[in-house]
């Protein structure tokens, strides 16, 4: 009885969906739960940029963007629910940015079957870089294996080129996300002769005493971290507690936002994190965001995240999506593109310095070209360091490339295995 009542009510709720729009972009965000501290700024940035395009340019190519937000709480079951609920909205969603490696793994087969592209920027399945196997998945401009290699290269540079016999510990979120870099790090350990210690931290990551006790006992020379959400704050606090030298503690780009370090106070000064785009709000596009979005009262969320690291990243994701839409519109000659044309646009996306400057983001991100073989960019990144006094992350290196020799070998290996398991014929 109860079930039937609910079903009727649910049907009524579903029938009253939002109005149709032409370019539907879905933001599967998480503003609640243990990962909200990182989910909120990313989502704000992602939404604000599309709002800016709607307000300032009237959308893209004359078509307004219909942004649909769906709360996943970083939970795969809710992620599936969100995907199914939104994929048909407004004539079909154009692209998904799940911001969760777990949900990405879930969506890769589903989105491939439905023909909707996924953009997993700097996360997700690394071997999706091989576009000839993963037709619908893109992870430009950099991926986890690039991150692992960039971190090791940074350590190499610091140690004067020789790290044989050094001990490096990896503190990682015990999930698909945290396990991604292990294979690359093992290869790099063989190549450079360092010793790798693996320290998993279970979801959600508040409990890390034993891992840091082990670090205190074994005194590794460097600690790398693959953390997300509350795990980052706890890890940095624990590192401060055991007085681990902060300049030898390097996080992946997902472990390097203001929210992660501020909790630990002044002692977190010197903590390092990778990044694949520039930091700060010193760009012309921020004036427009202030004028058209914030002052107009249309900012997403509380509007207090503008210019933070993850806000920038969310905005960068939106920039790349918008540029792909533009490319798709040019290629197909229609402004109301569908998801298939969107995929073609993403595969032919070309990001140049001139393009970024024209968007009001000069020198913000690396130059890269997407192709059928390469869905993952060129793996450029830089190291940023937390300045507690100024309260901001600062770039301390130039952009440099990851060890493509090792990574491309691993990508081919892993994607080949996936292709065999799933009977996929490589396209190019």
């Amino acid at each position: 009885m109860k079930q039937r009542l609910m079903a009727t009510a649910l049907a009524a709720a579903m029938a009253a969906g939002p109005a149709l729009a032409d370019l539907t972009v879905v933001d599967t965000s998480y503003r609640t739960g243990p990962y909200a501290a990182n989910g909120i700024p990313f989502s704000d940035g992602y939404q604000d940029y599309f709002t800016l395009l709607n307000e300032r340019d009237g959308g893209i190519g004359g078509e307004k963007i219909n942004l649909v937000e769906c709360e996943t709480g970083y939970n795969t079951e809710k992620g599936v629910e969100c995907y199914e609920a939104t994929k048909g909205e407004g004539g079909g969603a154009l692209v998904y940015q799940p911001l969760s490696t777990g949900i990405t793994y879930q969506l890769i087969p589903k989105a491939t079957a439905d023909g909707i592209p996924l953009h997993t920027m700097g996360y997700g399945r690394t071997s999706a870089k091989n576009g000839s196997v993963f037709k619908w998945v893109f992870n430009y401009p950099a991926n986890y294996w690039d991150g692992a290699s960039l971190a090791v290269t940074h350590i190499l540079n610091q140690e004067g080129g020789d790290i044989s016999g050094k001990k490096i510990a990896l503190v990682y979120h015990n999930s698909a996300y945290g396990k991604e870099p292990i294979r690359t790090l093992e290869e790099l350990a063989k190549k450079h002769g360092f010793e790798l210690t693996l320290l998993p931290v279970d979801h959600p990551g508040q409990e890390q005493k034993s891992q840091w006790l082990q670090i205190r006992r074994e005194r590794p020379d460097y600690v790398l971290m693959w953390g997300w959400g509350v795990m980052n704050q706890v890890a940095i606090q624990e590192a401060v507690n055991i007085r681990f030298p902060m300049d030898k503690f390097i996080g992946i780009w997902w472990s390097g936002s203001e929210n992660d370090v501020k909790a630990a106070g002044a002692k977190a000064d010197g903590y390092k994190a990778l990044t694949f785009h520039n930091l700060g709000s010193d760009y012309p596009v921020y004036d427009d965001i202030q004028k058209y979005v914030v002052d107009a009262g249309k900012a997403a969320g509380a509007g207090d995240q503008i210019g933070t690291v993850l806000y920038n990243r969310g905005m960068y994701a939106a920039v790349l999506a918008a540029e792909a839409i533009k490319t798709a519109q040019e290629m197909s000659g229609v402004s109301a593109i569908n998801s298939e044309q969107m995929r073609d646009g993403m595969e032919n996306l070309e990001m140049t310095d001139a393009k970024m400057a024209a968007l009001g983001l000069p020198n913000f991100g690396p130059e890269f070209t997407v192709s059928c073989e390469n869905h993952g960019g060129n793996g450029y990144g830089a190291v940023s360091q937390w300045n507690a006094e100024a309260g901001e992350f600062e770039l301390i290196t130039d952009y440099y490339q990851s060890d493509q020799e090792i990574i491309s070998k691993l990508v081919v290996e892993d994607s080949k295995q996936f292709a065999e398991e799933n009977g996929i014929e490589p396209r190019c």
Partner: protein
Amino acid sequence: MFYREAGDFKTSYTDDSQTFPIRFDRYRYYAVLVAAFAVVPVVIDDYWVNAVFLPFLIYAIAAIGLNILVGYCGQVSLGTGGFMAVGAYAVYKLMTAFPEVSIFFHVILAGGITAAVCVLFGLPSLRIKGFYLAVATLAAQFFLVWLFNRVPWFYNYSASGQISAPERTIAGVPVTGAETAPWAAYLFCLVFVTASALIARNLTRGMAGRKWMAIRDMDIAAEIIGVNPLKAKLSAFAVSGFFVGISGALFFAVYLGAVEVGEAFGINKSFLVLFMVIIGGLGSIFGSFAGAAFLVLLPVLLKNVLVGTLGWPTDLAAHLELIIVGSLIIVFLVAEPHGLAQLWRVAKEKLRLWPFPY
């Protein structure tokens, strides 16, 4: 009015002891079955299957399994998430090792494997009871999750530690993998739900169920009247594990398609299924369905109403959802400590007399 029992005579013992002795109930039950098997598959789409029906059906099996252990046999278990993980990993290993065997048998075998594991972790129940047993099963929960994370053999040495279900078909129709048609996934799970409910119902009103209930109500008295506590308790663990294993297998293979053990089968899952059993009603098969429906469908419904219809911000809706579901649980349990099943029972008694209550 609704229940016209006049003239509904029972002339044999079989008639008298059937599951739905009242004619109206019986017809309603047939109507639900016909609707579920013949009408729903024709009309459902991807969203209804993946967001509503599959989680409801799969959690219903898990709740039936746990209800046998907690509701009928009185052995508190907090290891449901871990046992679901056993089912999921068992079916994954079987699917990848023997691709030529039908997935249908793999799911049943996964249930069997889970039953064996469950019996193993049920051994402490012979010596400890109540909260102490809860702690012992909690250990099973953490141990199993740790094991599946730790030993690469279980996830076939994949780089991410995730398991993902390859495509498997029954009579040429895919039931797992991305190409699955909504009706196929739905029917596949529905068959298991129906079978589980029938088996559970008939077990619990037979000799086995009576033994379990005797143990639940007072184990010393049960022992004196001739119930073997070893057999009774372990059989409850085995049967419960079987159903929980099947639900875990379906949860992974049909519903999600890819899982990582810590996130999908964590302690939260154990609590969720336990709440379903408690809210639905301990010791009731209908209660398992009602509890699963309450905890699976209500959040989805609230989300659709708050975000879809009213257009509220998603974070506000997510927080409100927790508040509303939480307070409804309290209200329900204050109003009727025996769960939704008891509410339904009371309502039915009233309806049978209505409109002449005296």
